[in-house]
């Protein structure tokens, strides 16, 4: 008996080998046969009716030694195993250790030590103490899923206990009967009576024991159906991802009471390398779990089998490639380090969308078959809910995005509409002004008013018609240019422009206007010669002209200085500095838009198109490396800078 126990134990602690089996079996058989001889137990005497007395034989010591050594090996093996392992196995080892220890201590005491002193009186307790071993092994099985037969064991134990109970009752009755009537009642009389009592008592006894077992031995058992109903109901009532994960964590926590639980969601269901985020974790450090759930073996396994991965069953996975084995070792280590007992897949549309990590139960009970049944349902139900929630989230994101896009577009459209109506108001004012002068003048000519005037006034009238006609033309061309530049504006710039010469020419053309306003207009040529720049002369001239015209218009006194200098990377810098009213800071950013003026330019440029800077920017931007910007100080003046380059600057 002790030999087979040793073999069981060796296989339990994974140290089983054929060689060990051979030695143990041989020794056991040797003593087994020896026990039939008088070498160990010399003589057995029957005392009274209930007990036996044996006397020691010559090889008794040897036998006792073998048994004691075997027991010691048991205890050492188990103690080692207990120390080495965690979780379920640790608890299983613990109970086996206690069982073997009790059995060893008592049987050694009553069967070997006391007999050595000639006391055989308690030897019959030997078999009782071996019961401790059996009972505790059973307990380990039932409480800690040793060998995964918890439920079968539960049923078996109940039946077995009921049977024993009935038999004990019968035996007691038999003994009582003998005592009371002080005589031997023939068993053939008594048998049917015991059988009758047994039949009547068996069922109530079984029920009682079942209740007892459920209450004290299988406390973690719960109503699976009720739990599933609760889960389904809660999951159906929400679409928010964090609510869904919270519900799952809540239900699993309430029913199984794990030490830790974490719901990890896969971010990229389509890509081969999985990436996860921790959606809801209790007692887990999310940072530490991420590498575990992102392990390729774990993902492949869960995706393929769609079944939970149980830490205690990792060693049973076979048929792996070298790479997979490495990954498995990693998973095993990480699960052990983080005390993860189970990795539960969440499968939606046959895709792995998440993993639930579970620690051991707080009660140290093992996960039962029923737990796994619940897992299966959680897997599918939760996965669907999570999938829906993710879809909802994505949808919501898309809708939110689109809503804000639409809002932005609407705002932009409204702004454009406002700009357009402003454009029409202003453009029509700008166009009407010269027209009103031309019409008024012609009307006076037709009525003969002009003839009443002195000749030089007459001349001024005719001159005005001409000037206003020219102004009208320039306003029209500005408006046309601006609307043309509204779209993507491209100009040919294959000419080589002598920029200093161009700038000097345009500056000189304003000499008369500057003199009229008593402004000092200066052109500063570049200190070093500047090579011709690729560009479009017509547009560049327009640009410089617009800048100078602006400077002149907004400067009442002081000076305007135009200068050119060479910049790094084959670029040149044109600056036009005035001492005018300056531009308020808040208006600077939008100043290059159409019809935008500085807030202190009180009103629209009464004699211009309001499109000058817009056109300037468009022209400069259409040149290689072209850039225009400004520096300004309200009340002190503004400097516009234009950069032009030999080629496009790549930064």
């Amino acid at each position, binding site marked *: 008996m002790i030999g087979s126990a040793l073999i069981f134990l060796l296989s339990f602690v994974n140290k089983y080998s054929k060689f060990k089996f051979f030695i143990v079996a041989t020794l056991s058989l040797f003593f087994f046969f020896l026990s039939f001889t008088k070498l160990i137990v010399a003589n057995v005497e029957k005392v009274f009716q209930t007990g036996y007395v044996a006397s020691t034989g010559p090889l008794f010591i040897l036998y006792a030694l073998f048994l004691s050594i075997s027991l010691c090996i048991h205890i050492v093996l188990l103690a080692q195993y207990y120390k080495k392992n965690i979780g379920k196995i640790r608890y299983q080892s613990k109970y086996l250790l206690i069982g073997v220890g009790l059995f060893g201590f008592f049987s050694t005491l009553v069967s070997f030590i006391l007999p050595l002193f000639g006391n055989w009186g308690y030897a019959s307790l030997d078999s009782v103490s071996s019961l401790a071993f059996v009972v505790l092994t059973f307990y380990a099985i039932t409480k800690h899923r040793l060998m995964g037969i918890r439920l079968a064991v539960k049923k078996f134990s109940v039946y077995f206990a009921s049977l024993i109970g009935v038999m004990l009752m019968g035996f007691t009755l038999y003994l009582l009967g003998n005592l009371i009537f002080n005589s031997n009642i023939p068993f053939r009389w008594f048998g049917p009576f015991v059988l009758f009592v047994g039949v009547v008592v068996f069922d109530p006894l079984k029920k009682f024991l079942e209740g007892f077992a459920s209450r004290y031995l299988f406390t973690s058992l719960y109503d699976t159906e009720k739990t599933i109903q609760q889960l389904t109901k809660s999951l159906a009532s929400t679409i928010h991802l964090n609510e869904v994960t919270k519900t799952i964590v809540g239900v699993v926590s309430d029913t199984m009471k794990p030490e830790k639980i974490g719901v990890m969601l896969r971010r990229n269901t389509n890509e081969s390398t999985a990436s996860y985020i921790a959606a809801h974790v209790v007692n887990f450090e999310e940072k530490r779990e991420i590498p575990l759930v992102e392990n390729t073996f774990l993902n492949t396994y869960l995706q393929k089998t769609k079944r939970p991965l149980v830490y205690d069953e990792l060693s049973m996975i076979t048929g792996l490639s070298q790479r997979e084995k490495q990954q498995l070792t990693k998973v095993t280590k990480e699960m052990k380090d983080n005390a993860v007992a189970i990795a539960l897949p969440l499968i939606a549309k046959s895709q792995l969308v998440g993993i639930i990590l579970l620690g051991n139960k707080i009660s140290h009970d093992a996960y039962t078959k029923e737990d796994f049944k619940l897992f299966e349902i959680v897997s599918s139900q939760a996965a669907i809910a999570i999938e829906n929630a993710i879809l909802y989230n994505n949808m919501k994101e898309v809708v939110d995005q689109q809503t804000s896009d639409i809002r932005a577009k609407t705002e932009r459209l409204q702004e454009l509409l406002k700009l357009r109506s402003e454009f029409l108001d202003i453009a029509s004012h700008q166009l009407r002004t010269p027209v*009103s002068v031309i019409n008024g003048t012609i009307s006076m000519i037709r009525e003969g008013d002009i003839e009443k*005037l002195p000749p030089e006034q007459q001349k001024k*009238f005719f001159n005005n018609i001409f000037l206003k006609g020219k102004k009208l033309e320039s306003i029209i061309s500005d408006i046309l240019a601006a609307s043309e530049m509204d779209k993507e504006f491209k100009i040919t710039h294959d000419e080589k422009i002598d920029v200093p010469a161009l700038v000097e020419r345009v500056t000189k053309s304003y000499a008369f206007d500057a003199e009229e306003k008593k402004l000092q207009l200066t052109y500063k040529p570049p200190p070093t010669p500047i090579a011709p720049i690729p560009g479009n002369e017509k547009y560049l001239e327009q640009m410089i002209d617009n800048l100078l015209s602006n400077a002149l218009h907004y400067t009442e006194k002081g000076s305007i200085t135009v200068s050119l200098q060479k910049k790094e990377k084959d670029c040149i810098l044109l600056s036009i500095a005035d001492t005018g009213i300056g531009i308020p800071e808040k208006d600077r950013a939008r100043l290059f838009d159409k019809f935008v003026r500085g807030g202190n330019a*009180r009103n629209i440029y*009464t004699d211009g198109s309001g499109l000058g800077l817009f056109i300037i920017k468009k022209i400069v931007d259409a040149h290689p490396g072209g850039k225009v910007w400004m520096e300004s100080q309200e009340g002190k003046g503004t400097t516009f800078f234009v950069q032009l380059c030999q080629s496009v600057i790549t930064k």
Partner: protein
Amino acid sequence: MSTTAPTILLIEDDPDQIFLYSTKFKLEGFHFISATTGAEGIEKARREQPDLILLDIILSEENGIEVLKQLKGDALTAKIPVVAFSNLDKESTVQDALKFGAVEYILKTSLEPKDLVTKIRSLLANQKK
């Protein structure tokens, strides 16, 4: 200065227009004065007490509506009728001008100089009644 010749003040920043209208009004026997900025216009209105003010709304230095408010807010000039005279055909500006006391809003291109003179005469006649 004849007592029968009414005085017209034109507040307008474009010298070409001042030249045009001053010529016409003078030919029609008006006493015509002008100002190129709002500030100058207000100053002249207080000093000269014209019979009517023609006020351009788009001035290079100020907003004509602001000038109108000042004219109407000043006891010395509040009673002088002001005609808003502009090429800006913007409904909100027209409404503002009338709200702040302009007797009329005249679009420059809508009237030839002789029609403008006729219009001003009838306005002045109405004022006298």
